[in-house]
């Protein structure tokens, strides 16, 4: 029997397949199903500070809308005793999940203000989360904001959150840094316990019928594994943090590749959204079978085995390889 156990930010996990942040983790029962299917940990869907603010201001707006304007209808809604516009429902969910599961639960946070990052990180810790993933989701559209500004912002967030909580903190990164390796290095210095590669931004589409920009969710496929695979392979051994791969993990082959690149865990959600949480068991079984067939003893044995430092040709991860790929894509001559 192969040993699938791994560690991630100091947590012992029964296998390297973690459910990444998605709507699947909005529901206690679904999380229990995922645990039963074999998931070794679950990253909760993100608590968005922006959403908390929006909910609060939106409620205020609609409760104020049209009031004290007309003598017969001085208000339009009953005045409730309390409203849960804050993070309460999210925090309650974490507590409930912790009560009903035994696997590690990783909170996920997207803040907008420095006080928000700290406040909500602490609340997530108090709610019982075993670790925290910082989902720094930021599209720098301002032409006056430099790359250095963005990097500084990331580092400040990590430093301030690390100072305010005692649970391990992972940072989910965007792939759009000028110097990804340096950024990873700086984040490690700032205290990050793990780096999660990479955040997938929802890219808007165009609706030609209505000439509108239409946001729609496109789930990942295995091809998207390549980008995090490369960067984990490059960073493994160079940056002293744990790595998680979170894009394009759909099959046991993807899991194996991620581990070999150097990831401590691989994370999946798109696959489960498309084909159900039962895929967790299938992927794990596939992983085990592959390892057994090739007489691998443990996951630890293969983690980083194909990182840049450990492959025969380190240059394959670097830019020079680009030309070869292009050459292989020439159209077939007619």
């Amino acid at each position, binding site marked *: 029997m192969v040993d699938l156990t791994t560690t991630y930010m100091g947590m012992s996990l029964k296998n390297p397949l973690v459910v990444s942040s998605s709507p699947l983790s909005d529901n206690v029962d679904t999380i229990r199903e995922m645990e039963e299917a074999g998931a070794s940990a679950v990253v909760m869907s993100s608590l968005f500070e922006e959403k908390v603010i929006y909910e609060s201001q939106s409620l205020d707006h609609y409760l*104020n809308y049209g009031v004290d*304007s*007309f003598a*017969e209808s001085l208000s339009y809604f009953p005045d409730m005793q309390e409203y849960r516009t804050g993070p309460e*429902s999210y925090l309650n969910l974490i507590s409930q999940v912790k009560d009903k599961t035994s696997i590690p639960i990783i909170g996920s946070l997207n803040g907008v203000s420095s006080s928000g990052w700290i406040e909500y990180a602490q609340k997530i810790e108090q709610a019982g989360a075993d670790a925290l993933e910082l989902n720094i989701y930021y599209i720098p559209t301002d032409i006056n904001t430099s790359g250095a500004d963005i990097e500084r912002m990331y580092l400040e967030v990590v430093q301030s959150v690390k100072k305010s909580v005692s649970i391990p903190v992972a940072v989910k990164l965007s792939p759009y840094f000028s110097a990804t390796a340096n950024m990873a290095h700086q984040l490690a210095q700032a205290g990050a316990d793990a780096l999660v590669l990479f955040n997938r931004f929802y890219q808007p589409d165009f609706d030609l019928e209505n000439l509108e920009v239409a946001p729609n969710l496109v789930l990942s496929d295995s091809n998207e594994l390549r980008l995090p695979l490369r960067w984990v392979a490059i960073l493994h051994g160079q940056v002293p943090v744990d790595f998680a791969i979170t894009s394009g993990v759909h099959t046991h082959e993807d899991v194996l590749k991620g581990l070999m690149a150097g990831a401590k865990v691989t994370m999946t959600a798109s696959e489960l959204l498309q084909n159900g949480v039962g895929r967790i068991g299938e992927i794990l079984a596939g992983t085990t079978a592959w390892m057994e067939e090739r007489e691998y003893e443990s996951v630890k044995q293969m983690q980083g085995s194909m990182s840049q430092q450990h492959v025969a040709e380190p240059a394959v991860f670097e830019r020079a390889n680009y030309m070869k790929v292009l050459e292989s894509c020439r159209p077939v001559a007619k």
Partner: protein
Amino acid sequence: MTRQQVTIDGNEAAAYIAHKTNEVIAIYPITPSSPMGEHADQWSSQGGTNIWGTVPLVIEMQAEGGAAGAVHGALQTGALTTTFTASQGLLLMIPNMYKIAGELTSAVFHIAARSIAAQALSIFGDHSDVMATRATGWGMLFSNSVQEVMDLALISQACTLESRVPFLHAFDGFRTSHEVMKVEKLSEDDIRAMISDDMVRAHRERGLTPDRPRIRGTAQNPDVYFQARETVNAFYQATPEIVQRAMDKFAGLVGRQYHLFDYVGAPDAERVIVLMGSGCETAEETVNYLVGQGEKVGVIKVRLYRPFSVGHFLSALPKTVKTIAALDRTKEPGGAGEPLYLDAVTAVSEGMAEGTASFDSHPRVIGGRYGLSSKEFTPAMVKGVFDEMSKAQPKNHFTVGIVDDVTNTSLDYDPAFDIEMDDVVRAVFWGLGADGTVSANKNSIKIIGEETSHHAQGYFVYDSKKSGARTVSHLRFGPRHIHNSHLIQQSNFVAVHQSGFLEQYDVLETAKEGATFLLNSVYGPDEVWEHLPEQVQRQIIDKKIKFYVIDAYDVARETGMGVRINTIMQTCFFAISNVLPREEAIAQIKKAIKKTYGKRGEAVVQKNYVAVDAAVAHMHQVTVPDQSSSVIKMPPVVPPEAPEFVQNVTAKMMAGEGDLLPVSAMPVDGTYPTGTTQWEKRDIAMDVPVWEPDVCIQCGKCVLVCPHAVIRAKVYDESDLSGAPETFKATEARWKGMEGQKYSLQVSVEDCTGCTLCVEVCPAKDKSQVGRKAINMESILPLKEAEKENWDFFLGLPEFPRQDGLNFTNVKNIQLLQPLFEFSGACAGCGETAYIKLASQLFGDRMIIANATGCSSIYGGNLPTTPYTFNQDGRGPTWSNSLFEDNAEFGLGMRLTVDKQTEYARELVDRLREAIGSDLAGALLNADMSYEAGIEAQRGRVVDLKAKLSGLDDPAARDLLSLADVLVKKSVWIIGGDGWAYDIGYGGLDHVLAGGRNVNVLVLDTEVYSNTGGQASKATPLGAVAKFAAGGKPLPKKDLGMIAMSYGHIYVAQVAMGANDAHTIKAILEAEAYDGPSLIIAYSHCIAHGIDMAQGLNQQKLAADSGHWLLYRYNPALQAEGKNPFTLDAKAPKIPLKSYIDTENRYRMLQQSDPDTAERLAAKAQKVVEARWEQYQQLAGKK
């Protein structure tokens, strides 16, 4: 014992006692009493208990009559039961009130007394409703102030239990029900001490139970009814003493002593006024002032009006009295006098005749009317009455407060007479509903009332519009109890939150010398002076006013407050009014913000804090020059070309000077001209739609959906463009057969509310810049003058001829029809008005409308102006509102007139066939009026007929002449909201639909009582939060259409313009064409849904797409063709219900307040949607 000081209004004070002392509460919304029911419902839903520790059971009924019936039943089975109502609601309770009193049942109804609809409806306060119940046998206690409401509510409850006589506890609608005042809150111990548990148990014992079987409510015969009716006498005789004992006991407990008749004034007064209600406060204040001046005057404040104790009344009057003036806040046309006057006359007469009165001489009693419909009752008027009483022959049956130049009943008085005390801060705030002025002022009253030793009072005046509404707040703060139940006459602080008011109203009229004036203006301290009208400049100089300015909108924008400038202006008020030290005031404002907004989330609190901190720094004192220099004058209210009535009457009301109109100016029977909103340019939109002809596809959707009919389209000859203003836009008309014609789309920017529905619905986008549509919002400022000119030119272009062969069955063509419903005061983006406007385009020139009370009767018929208008031939909808509950019957009556008169006219045509010519007679009788040209042809025949008849000297000919117009087809419409159709008017609606007459019923279904502030109706959907359904409506919406379809002979359609405009048009046309009853249920998005009103049409689409609102038509005419009459026009639901309801605050707030229930109800609602879809598919034969 120290009791809690609270700042509340009269409604809350009454509801507090009612909820503490009852077990069952049956409620129904009606202004101004609705908040009492809302409080009771909310307290019970939050687990609030009565003094016996149990939560009162609160139930909403379908009507006040239903509430009274439920109350009666609950009382007869032994529960302590109450209700709250006003006006017509109280009238609907009268039958049960006779029963409850006849059965000697202990109960209290709390009444926010309001005018009764006579020549017109009025929501405001007087005693007409209470007085209409005098004969029912109920006791009546009147409260004059908010404190008294709380006190006498409890005393009423105690007295009814002891006396077994039921009590109306009445107080003045709005003036007391809505006045916010600092009062001492009675404790539960106080209440327990007043309410005898033994008597409660005795009441319970009298309840009917099969364990002690009895019957009550028998039918009696001539042999015993009379005697049985007299059995109650002893109870009524005992009641006054019981009430006085209760008042004495209350005084012992609480310290406030009341009497059945409280006298205030000189012990040797010769002139005494007698009155009830809030007017007593002003009368008392005035009497005290006049006595201080040495005058021998006094006032009797009547507390217990029924049973009327002659002995107590006579004892309360000073023996020196020579003249008594009984002032009634009601009118009984044709009576010997109003009720209180008659009681006073009777009492004095009996007292003198029987020797029980101890007056020095026989006093003269005169009677007068005052204060109808919340007409102001001021110290000047009180003095005017006393002055009249000094005359040798004082006027009897007088009026005070108006100018009656017809029957000369009115008294003269000096309006300048004022008695306000100098130690009272009196502040007047002019604001808009949307800017939060009233909310902030309510907060200020709480701050001063609850955080300082000062007394505080606030009263708020609203205008009659639902969009761009003006509010005027009157706040008093002072060291003593405030006895002023009238608006501020002399203010030492005036704030104007909208600088546009300076050119519309005399905002500084009340400012006294040395007052402080705070203005919100885009102009800074160095520029603002030159932008003031000359009149305002002059007042500032003459009255030595200290003038401050702030650009509050700029501060609001900077601090994320949007258009809510309330917190900013409130902070400035405290900073310069010296009511509190500035730092303390700011701390208190922040505390109040936390208290008010804290539960909405920290982000909201912080936003307001930032606004408070930014406010004072942006306020500047303006250096006032010695001389006025402005050339800005107050413009005329209406242009000179407005009709005479509009000039002389309507314009005065529009200017806020309606109080000055004499009786002679008013129509005698409540009949007013239509077509008047066109003269009321409200100019409330900051951004207005601008048409882009190069992008426009001339689809007509913007014209169709515009709730205010401010977007119009015309097709006309190019030659008509001669003389067009330079900026007038026109393009080639894109209709088959109209090549070479011109097309213009024009916006009336001064009538626009800026709702943006037109932009949202516009499907045409610029190919090079998709963000630019064929219609886009732009700032009105640079456009206004040119667009006013363009609009005037557009109106002068010829209307498209209706009978020109164009088929008015689609959106594109209908845009060319003139709307005969325009510029209503409905909410910006209203979801109802587009349906009415559409019907007016299609049938307006032959439309008779019966309109149920509700939003549509308010924006349809609330003075000063009406949106219903007429075409170039002078034809247009004729409209009336009867009541809330009877609208279907009212409309049926109109139909019956049309049917009967048509029948008679046809008979006359036949009888006079020879005289008018057989051909014409035949054509008249056989006319096909199923299409526009056919109707127009008949109109031509009627003209010919009239010409022939006018020369005939024959009674039948004269009759036919008077009836000839009825030969042209009329279209009877019965319009109302869901509160009417689903609830209070349902019985009548059912009967009218079942009766088969040709009426068209349009239900504007907002799924809630919108007009009274969002109470649940039976149309409210499962899971939605509404008042009276604070925990989410637990049961599904009634399927009104399905019920109607079950008859088989009724045309029924469910439509949603935002989901399918073509379907809406088709249904309305089919309904009107159907020769029988028709019911159209129209989804109407509403401000009470908690939505962005600009997205209203999208909300309609989501409602349809989710299967919540199914589009269908049931046309019985198809049966004759052997077809299934039911057509399911909806497609299968394509989004989950959640995708719709999550976008509306009425559902979302349940998710925020009670997520488990929200989830459970949402799941149940989804199942209901699915089941209904199955059911309708079967009906359509698709399954």
